[in-house]
Structures are given as C-alpha cells and as structure tokens.
C-alpha cells in the first residue's frame, strides 16, 4: 500500500478536553488491565471515541513476523481474512509514521483490494504504528465509511493512543517475560530438586545468607533432618568446633564475593560420630541474574582421608624402616626407573640423574660386574620375575664391596606395578666364608690325617653323605659307589650281634645330650673282613625336637681293640698271679708260724686276707676305682662280724686303687681292734661307720659304742702306726683318735681333691 496524500477536509471536531479525558481514561484502563484483551478493548474504545470512527482494529506481528488481527470492532471475518498479513512496515522497523488514506478508490491499490475494502463499507483508513522500545510491534487501524481527510489533530490523537498502547505492550511484555522467567525458575528448581533428590552425593542449596534452602535425601539423612525442618536447620552447628571458625569464615567470604568455594571439614552425623566432608560450592543465580545463594556438593571423604593418612603413615613407616635397615633399599616403577632409595645411598658412590630425571644407578656398579648386572635387571624387567645377583658396588670412599642384590616385583593382577629391591653388603661375610672354607679344608686334612672318616646322615630322607676318602676306605667301598642308608648299613655292614647297639644308641638320642657314640663291628665290603668301628657325632634337631641330622666321624679301631684285648689279657693274668702270690704268702706264713705265736699269725693272716679281698674287688673293676662302701663291706664282713653291728652310712665316694687298698688296711685294723678289745668284743656293742663330704674334705668317722669301757692304749702298736702312717702316706689324711669311755671315735679327714667324686 502506498502512502496517500492526507485529505484534511470534513473532520468532525471534538472538544480538546473530551479527547484528553479519553486518553486519560485509556491510560488508567491500560494500567489496570490484567490481560491482553483488556488492553486491546480499552485501546479500540479510545480510538473509536477519540477519532469518531465506527470500526477499528489492532494487529500485531506474530512469531513469524506476519501482521495478524488481535482485536477489532465492526469488521467482518471475511474482510479480516482477506487483508490479514498486509502491512506497510516490517517487524522491528524504527521511526515509522502513520499513513492516512483519504479515499481508497483514489489510490493505486489493486482493484481486488479496493473491492474488498469498499465491500466492507470502508472508504478511508488510517495505519498507525504501535512501537515498543522504539521498534514497531504492530499497528492499529481506524476506518471511515466515506472519504475522510485526516487532520493534524487527529494525527496527534492517533499517535498518542498508539504510544499508550505501545507502553502497555511494553509493560505487558515485561510482565509476560517475568512470568515466563518465574515459571522457568520454578521449573528449573523443581527439576533440580527432582534430579538431586536421589543423587549418590550430598547436594544442597543455600540462600544468600547461607541458610539451607534445599538438602537432597542423602544430605538430609546425613544430618537427620526432614524436609520440613530444612528452613530452620542450623547446619553450622554440626561442624566440629575445631573446624567451625574456618568453615564460617570461608562460607561468609564466598557468599560475600559470590565466588566458588571448596573446603573440607568434620561434621557430626545423625546417630553420632564425625565424618569428613569435602564441599565444592558455586554461586547460584536465577535466570534473570539474581544471586540466590550457593549450590554445593558434599562428598564423604572420611574413608579416603583415613586411607590416605594410613598410606602416608605406612609410607612414613616404610621409609623409617627402610632407613633403619642395614642395607641399601630402593624402589623402582614398573619401567625400572628408580624413584626411591634409603639414606644408605650416602655410603655409596654418587650416582647421577640423567636429563630425563631418572637416577642412573650404573655408576654404583663395579665396572667388571656391570654387564652381568644389566643383563639380570633387563631380564627381570622383561619377565617380571624376581632376581638375585652377587656383585661389587662402589663405595663413596672408592672401594668396591661385594653385595647381594635382590629385587622383587610388586604385582597387581599379574601386572608388575613396582620393584622393591635391596643390596646387602656381604663383603665381610664373603671373606669369612672364604676363610671358613679354608679352615674347613684344613680341618678335613687334619681329620684325614687322624684316619677319621667324616659322614652326614639325613634322618628324614635316610641319605648319607660320606665326605672324605677315608670314610670309603673304612667301609671298603669304592669312592664312586653310593653310600649306604641306615637299613643297608644295619643289614649289610653291621655285625648281626651288634645290630641292637645301633637301635639302642638311636633310642637314647635326646635334646639334652645330642652326642652320639657307638662302638660296633662291621664287615668291610671289599673283603668282608671283621673290623671294629667307632662312630661319634652330634645330632641336630628340628623345632619340634625331632632329630633330623647326624654329623659324625668314624674310625676303624680294630688295631686299638686288639691292643685293648691284649691288655685285658695281661691284666687278667696279673690279677691271677697276684692272687696266687698272696695265697702263697698266706700259706708260707701259716707254715712258718706253725708252733709259733698264734696271735701274731692271726694278725698277719687277717691283714693278708683284707689285702686279698680288696685286690679281688679292684680286679673286678679293672683296677680303676672302687667305692668306699664296697671296700668297707669287703674288709669288715669277711671277719665274720655281724654286719648289722657295723652301720655304714655315707654318699657314693669313689677311691683310686691305691686309696682303696689303704682304706681297706686302715678299716681292717680298726675292725680288728674293735673285735679284740672294743665295741665288737661284746654282743651289746656296735660301730657307726659314716662319711660325709664337707666343703673341702671327706671325713670318715669310725665310732664305737656299747662295748667295755674304753681306755687309751699304753703303747703304740703296729696297728696304730699303720692306721696313721698309711692314711698319711696314701690319702694325705689326718687321723684323730679319741678314746672316749663309751667307745673309740676315729676321724679320718681326707682332702677332697684326693678322692674321685
């Protein structure tokens, strides 16, 4: 539609004050309008009244920028449909002016349009743009049934009304936007609540003052509050008092500056106990930009913190332990890059760190051992298997010391994660080992020299190891033959008569005395010759006290045995001859004294008999020793004295052969005297023979009682001399004789070292 010239003729004039009133009423109605329809209705009424037209309409751009009828008065639907969408302006256009058409028939518009318009009874039209925020948003139309010339006043009225409507549209749009925003806000809050409610983390929102607005289920359960209690809930009171000041300050600062915040604190959980919560919060803005408080997420990191602390502690413990170890301790990542070593490193040559930041350990290895070390390490890395190598490491002082290096992979699901390694200084050990080896060699040579065979018997496996050549020679076994176990030894080698000796010796084995000794006859394998074997050794026991191993030496003592047998033969012969000689002396004495002094003969005969008795006793004991009790018994009993009248009491005391002979003669003299003159001369008398060991001497007491009154002898007879001198000569003993009236008491004190205990 082309803008037409304005026809300013035939306009019905309305008084200015009534127009003002119309505009005022319009403003008022627009202000009060609660809906769009009320706005349009008020506008149409004002247009018709102010301009005096019979029909009018209001159109607006729709979402597709097409001008559509939104309100009208006195227009048919046919007309509205026909002209709908026509507009002289585009949406958003600025600075548009009203267009007034005096007579449609006088325009260049197409005939069909003129026909539609005239058919609706319209000849004159006004197009008045409605603007909001300076942009055209629609228009209102005013129609006249006859040609009408629009004057300036009508123009002012139209523009004033359009401006009022424009303001209303602005307000209404703002209101509409506000409603949308509010609804969106409500929706988004609702969505947020729904989404956060069952989230597996604790979610909250606060208002701008930091009070709780919303807590999701997890957080409500944590604090033990119901939804209705949220508005009055004091979350800050659940903070561990120690942490409270920090949390309060941090949150206040975040709210004040409206900035994201992260903090960690301990909160009391419903049901008791404190948990560590990690909070991440950011400012929460409404879609219109209003600051609404904070929105945050709480994570319970108690376990994580505990685990981390445990980890830190275990790490610290590991380091402390590693530093305390007398070894070089290191760890490496799965690629073999060293990432830790203990403080012992300071004792070693200084390694360097290469440009990649890896510690270069090759500088620590003695150059000759480097290739081998690298080879095992690379193989270990490839296979993920532990390794061990003995090599020399360079010390800080420049020396090289032997070390045993070990490394073990720490795997997770079959994948090596780290390597844990140690290097132990075995230099001294190695030296000691070498010395030990030498010393063992020397010992073996010595043992061989002594003609001893060395063997080891593993009891559990019944395997023997014959450790030197001599062992094979003793048994007549070739050195390349296997050594026998126990059963083969017992059945093939051991003389059948001596088989019980082996079992008995094994039965006697116990912890207290791990030593083992056996003398038995064997039949040598090479010539089946009978040989005497002496085996001695020590058993080793396991934790439960079972013997597990016997280590010992074996000697062929056949020659020694033959010598011993020969010696025994000689001793037996000698005993026999001594006894014979004594008998001969006795016979000679008897014959010599025939017709002589019978008392003298009796005395000599008694002494010879006493001597003979102790001789027999000693012969039975291979002339080694005899006990004091036995000696006393033999030399007292043969005289026919009532044994019950001589009470003997004392601990076990062994006497050498010579001491036994002397003691026998002394006791014989005492006994003879007692029988002749003392306690044993009467039936009422008795003798107490007792001996005790004191700190440094053995005291033998001969005490008589119940005999005739005892008198000290007037002269020293041979008996007395014998008692004193024999005791002094052979026992270094002191003899005290006390002739008490009730009986003789004779004390013989023998220095302890003179008797065999």
């Amino acid at each position, binding site marked *: 539609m082309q803008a037409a010239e304005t026809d300013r003729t035939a306009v019905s004039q309305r008084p200015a004050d009534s127009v003002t009133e119309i505009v005022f009423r319009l403003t008022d109605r627009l202000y009060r309008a609660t809906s769009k329809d009320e706005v349009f209705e008020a506008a149409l009424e004002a247009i018709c009244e102010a301009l005096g037209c019979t029909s009018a309409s209001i159109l607006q751009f729709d979402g597709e920028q097409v001008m559509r009828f939104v309100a009208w008065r006195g227009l048919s639907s046919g007309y509205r449909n026909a002209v709908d969408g026509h507009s002289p302006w585009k949406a958003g256009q600025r600075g548009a002016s009203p267009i007034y058409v005096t007579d449609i028939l006088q325009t260049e518009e197409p005939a069909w349009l003129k026909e539609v318009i005239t058919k609706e009874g319209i000849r004159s039209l006004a197009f008045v743009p409605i603007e909001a925020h300076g942009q055209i948003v629609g228009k209102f139309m005013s129609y006249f049934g006859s040609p009408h010339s629009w004057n300036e006043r009508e123009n002012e009225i139209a523009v004033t009304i359009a401006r009022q409507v424009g303001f209303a549209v602005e307000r209404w749009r703002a209101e509409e936007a506000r409603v949308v925003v509010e609804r969106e806000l409500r929706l988004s809050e609702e969505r947020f609540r729904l989404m956060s409610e069952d989230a597996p983390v604790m979610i909250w929102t606060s208002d701008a003052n930091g009070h709780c607005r919303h807590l999701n289920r997890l957080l409500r359960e944590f604090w033990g509050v119901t939804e209705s209690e949220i508005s009055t809930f004091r979350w800050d009171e659940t903070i561990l008092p120690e942490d409270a000041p920090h949390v309060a300050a941090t949150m206040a600062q975040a709210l004040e500056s409206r900035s994201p915040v992260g903090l960690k604190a301990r909160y009391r959980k419903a049901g008791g106990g404190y948990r560590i919560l990690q909070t991440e919060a950011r400012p929460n803005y409404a879609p219109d930009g209003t600051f609404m408080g904070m929105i945050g997420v709480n994570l319970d990191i108690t376990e994580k913190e505990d685990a981390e602390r445990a980890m830190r502690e275990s790490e610290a413990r590991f380091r402390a332990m590693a530093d305390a170890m007398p070894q070089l301790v290191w760890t490496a990542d799965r690629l073999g890059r060293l990432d830790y070593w203990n403080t012992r490193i300071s004792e070693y040559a200084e390694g360097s760190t290469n440009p990649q930041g890896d510690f270069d350990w090759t500088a620590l290895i003695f150059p000759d051992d480097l290739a081998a070390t690298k080879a095992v390490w690379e193989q270990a890395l490839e296979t993920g298997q532990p390794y061990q190598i003995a090599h020399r490491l360079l010390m800080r002082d420049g020396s090289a010391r032997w070390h045993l290096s070990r490394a073990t992979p720490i795997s997770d699901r079959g994948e090596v994660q780290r390597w844990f390694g140690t290097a132990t200084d075995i230099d001294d050990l190695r030296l000691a080992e070498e010395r030990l080896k030498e010393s063992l060699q020397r010992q073996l040579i010595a043992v061989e020299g002594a003609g001893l065979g060395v063997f080891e018997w593993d009891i559990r496996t019944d395997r023997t190891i014959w450790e030197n050549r001599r062992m094979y020679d003793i048994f007549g076994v070739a050195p390349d033959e296997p050594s026998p176990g126990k059963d083969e030894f017992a059945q093939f080698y051991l003389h059948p008569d001596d088989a019980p000796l082996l079992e008995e010796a094994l039965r006697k084995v116990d912890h207290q005395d791990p030593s083992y000794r056996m003398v038995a006859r064997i039949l040598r394998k090479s010539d089946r010759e009978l040989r005497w074997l002496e085996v001695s050794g020590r058993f080793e026991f396991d934790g439960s006290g079972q013997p597990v191993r016997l280590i010992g030496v074996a000697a062929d003592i056949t020659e020694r045995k033959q010598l011993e047998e020969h010696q025994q033969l000689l001793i037996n012969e000698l005993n026999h001859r001594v006894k014979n000689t004594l008998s001969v002396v006795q016979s000679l004495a008897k014959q010599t004294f025939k017709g002589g002094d019978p008392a003298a003969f009796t005395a000599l005969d008694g002494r010879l008999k006493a001597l003979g008795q102790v001789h027999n006793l000693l012969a039975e004991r291979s002339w080694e020793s005899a006990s004091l009790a036995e000696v006393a018994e033999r030399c007292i009993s043969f005289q026919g004295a009532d044994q019950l009248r001589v009470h003997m009491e004392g601990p076990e005391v062994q006497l050498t052969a010579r001491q036994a002979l002397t003691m026998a003669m002394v006791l014989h003299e005492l006994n003879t005297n007692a029988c002749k003159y003392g306690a044993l001369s009467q039936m009422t008398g008795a003798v107490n023979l007792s001996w005790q060991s004191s700190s440094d001497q053995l005291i033998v007491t001969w005490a008589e009682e119940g005999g005739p009154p005892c008198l000290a002898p007037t002269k020293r007879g041979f008996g007395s001399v014998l008692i004193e*001198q*024999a005791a002094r000569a*052979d026992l270094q003993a002191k003899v005290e004789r006390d002739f008490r009236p009730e009986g003789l008491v004779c004390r013989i004190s023998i220095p302890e070292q003179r008797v065999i205990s």
Partner: protein
Amino acid sequence: MNATSLQDRAILIVEDEFLIALEASEILEASGATVIGPAYRLDEAMTLVESNRVDLALLDVNLNGELSDPVVAALQLKGVPVALTTGYGNKLPFTFLGPVLTKPYTPDELVAVMGAL
C-alpha cells in the same frame, strides 16, 4: 759294714710306700741314725730338705707318679750324699751317678749302702 758309721747321722727317708718307709726307718734307727721323715710325697720331702739338717738321704725314684729328681738336685746342691731305691729295675728315668738299691732289699744291703755314702 760298720754300723757305727751311721751313728747320729741325720738320714732323710723319702718313700711313698709307708710300710717300706717304716721298715727302712727302723733299720736305720737301729743302726744309730736319726731319721728325718719319712716323707711320702715330693712336696713333703722338699719341705724337710729346707727345714732340717740332713747328712744323708734315701730316696725312692718314683713318688706316687712323681719323679724325685728335684729332691735329688736340691740335696746335691747342699752337698748331701744321696742313695736311690727303685722297684722298676736298673733303668732310671733320670741321670744319677750315686748308688741305687733295688727293691726288695735286705736290711744289711740298706745299712751297707747308706754307710758307704
């Protein structure tokens, strides 16, 4: 043999077999000598040598396993003539140039040897 030659002589007897010592003492005392001892052991003998006037000495070679040569040496140092007795034949375990009595000996033999010193 001149028994008077032993009159008032101080004779040390060292003999571990007390019966033999006893007999020797009786024989020599009967010859007018004064017996020092008898000592049965080496240490006893040494003590007597140091604390008594000894004119002559009769020593057993073997004193219960100990040889009497230290006593011989001590006596010779003092210029005391010594005679030895032994039950082990003629072979002595140490060098000795004086007279040796083989056990068993008779009283006359003893007095003769001691008198000749």
